[in-house]
């Protein structure tokens, strides 16, 4: 026994060093995670305590529920609307802001400023802009005598409207990360290619994008995960409506748990979302990362 005690001295020291993060992770990540998985197999009472073990019934219910399938569809659509456009826009602005021009610092600040605004605050601003009677967008449309749009009230438009505001909110962060990536590229590479006579788009294709690929990969991964987890702007702009068209999974989880007090099905949804994000991220690492060039 004493030899084991002595032999494990390194391991014990290591655990001691890891203890603070083990405690923090356990309290805030591991426990909630396992609790969620546990709850997803139960029906719960109003306080969220496990009441009846129903096995996989919660999952079966979800997969046959048109509401949940609708949520999943809306979420996937939302991801497709926001991520590609958001990143292309951020890349475009970052390329512009990376040029050496007078007063470019001002534009860099402006483009990244949305990072400093909370989701709640910016959602309220967009709420005003989307307002059908006093909002800026409908005013603009009327100036050009175009038909008015019920931005957040029309089921056809609501998801798109939320997507537009989300793209705007996330632009600052993506912009900043991509600009950082651009500035990390050795200036001499461009000088050397200029001597060879490479034009702007040739340089973009053969130097900038490959050199930027680790940054792009990072920002795509983060953006995808963020988009799947969108909640704040839905809660403020549409509350999942109209007619469920913006009821994204996370919002649906929230409603299920804290409005309908169905913690079991809510947990099951959370687990499904977790699996979806996990699969998407794994796919990304498997398929896309091969094209990424690390230094």
């Amino acid at each position: 026994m004493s030899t084991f005690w002595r032999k494990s001295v390194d391991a014990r020291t290591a655990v001691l060093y890891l203890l603070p993060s083990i405690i923090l992770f356990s309290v805030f990540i591991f426990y909630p995670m396992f609790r969620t998985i546990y709850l997803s197999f139960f029906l719960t009472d109003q306080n969220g305590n496990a009441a009846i073990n129903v096995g996989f019934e919660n999952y079966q219910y979800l997969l046959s529920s048109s509401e949940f399938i609708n949520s999943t569809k809306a979420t996937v659509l939302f991801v497709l609307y926001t991520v590609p456009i958001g990143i292309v826009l951020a890349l475009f602005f970052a390329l512009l802001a990376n040029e050496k021009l007078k007063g470019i610092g001002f534009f860099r600040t402006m483009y990244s400023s949305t990072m400093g605004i909370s989701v709640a605050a910016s959602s309220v601003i967009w709420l005003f802009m989307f307002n059908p009677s006093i909002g800026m967008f409908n005013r603009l449309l009327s100036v050009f005598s175009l038909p008015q749009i019920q931005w957040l009230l029309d089921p056809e438009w609501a998801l798109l409207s939320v997507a537009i505001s989300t793209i705007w909110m996330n632009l600052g962060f993506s912009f900043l990360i991509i600009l950082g990536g651009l500035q990390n590229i050795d200036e001499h590479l461009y000088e050397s290619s200029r001597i060879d006579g490479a034009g702007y788009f040739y340089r973009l294709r053969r130097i900038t994008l490959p050199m930027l690929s680790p940054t792009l990969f990072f920002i795509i991964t983060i953006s995808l995960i963020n988009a799947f987890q969108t909640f704040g702007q839905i809660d403020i702009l549409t509350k999942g409506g109209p007619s469920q068209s913006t009821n994204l999974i996370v919002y649906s989880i929230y409603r299920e748990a804290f409005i309908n007090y169905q913690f079991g099905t809510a947990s099951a949804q959370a687990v499904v979302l977790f699996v979806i994000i996990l699969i998407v991220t794994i796919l990304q690492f498997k398929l896309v990362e091969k094209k990424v060039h690390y230094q």
Partner: protein
Amino acid sequence: MKRVELIDVSKSYDKQVDVISNINVTIEPGEFFVLVGPSGCGKSTMLRMIAGLEEITGGTLKIGDKVANNLTPDKRDLSMVFQNYALYPHLSVQQNITFGLDVKRMKKEEQRRKAKEVAAMLGLSDYLDRKPRELSGGQRQRVALARSIVSETPICLMDEPLSNLDAKLRAHMRSEIRRIQRQLGITMIYVTHDQVEAMTMGDRIMILHEGKIQQVGKPIDIYNYPANPFVATFIGSPPMNLAKAEFDKATSELVLGGEIRLPVPMDESGKLPTTTMTVGIRPENLYPVTPETKAEDIFHTTVTNVEILGNETVFSFTIGEEEWMAKWSGQWHIDIGDQLPVRMEFESISIFDGQSGELLKRTVDHGNYVTTKEVQA
């Protein structure tokens, strides 16, 4: 092969202070021209101006016989090797070499053939599929060189290409670059802060200091006849010894640093100014005393430091306020604190004007000739 001509070229970033001014020089076709100077002297800026990476704010740059001030870099018909090589890390060695050819839409097959040819010339054939990060410093340097050779431009610019290599590799690449330049007959403009590189590689060298030309000429002429004290101390290792000096008319002697009195030959004394001068002498022209030495050529020193380099011995001592060094060939058993007689001859000293620094008196030609006659006799 093309001529590069700079006429009154200057550069300023804020339109007030010139960082480079009054550059007038013609670089002949096929010449190996070295720009040398301490860091911050503007040599890299000048090279970048020739390359078209920096704007020329004054004067004219001619490449071939065309004014090139406003030409874009790719229209100037030149290639450039950067200090950090600027290799594309995501491309293979072959793609790196053919990057410029691909820009010019050369056929893939032709590109491959040329890359192979150049790779063979530089011993890179086995590495064509590797990424730059899988190469050693010397190999990366060769890739950068290959990229510039494959473009077949008549002018090649190099910005401190050897400064990231270790001493042995540097010496090897020095001769390699020189060999390739001769073989292809390229006009080479080469920037370095290393005076050894400048001396050994250049057909002609130009010494820059604070944005101004100090001297242009053959390396050996610059070594023998430096135009001013700056050049005298910059070229040569250890540097030329300098001391403030005055001419004592009464005894017809030069007084160096208030200590050493050196007799001036009758025919020379008339040419010396009466104001203060700076006298310089190369460490190898301070000789040990032999029985034939004339007493008036000897002065006595106290040794402050000794370095024995195997085939030669360098020791230092103080003259006035300056530290001087002497270089004697062979191994000498000298200790710090020793009193040592040293021989100095008037004919080996250089004299610069105390104010303008202009060279007033040259040294005699110390060069030796190999005469076959003597050997036969």
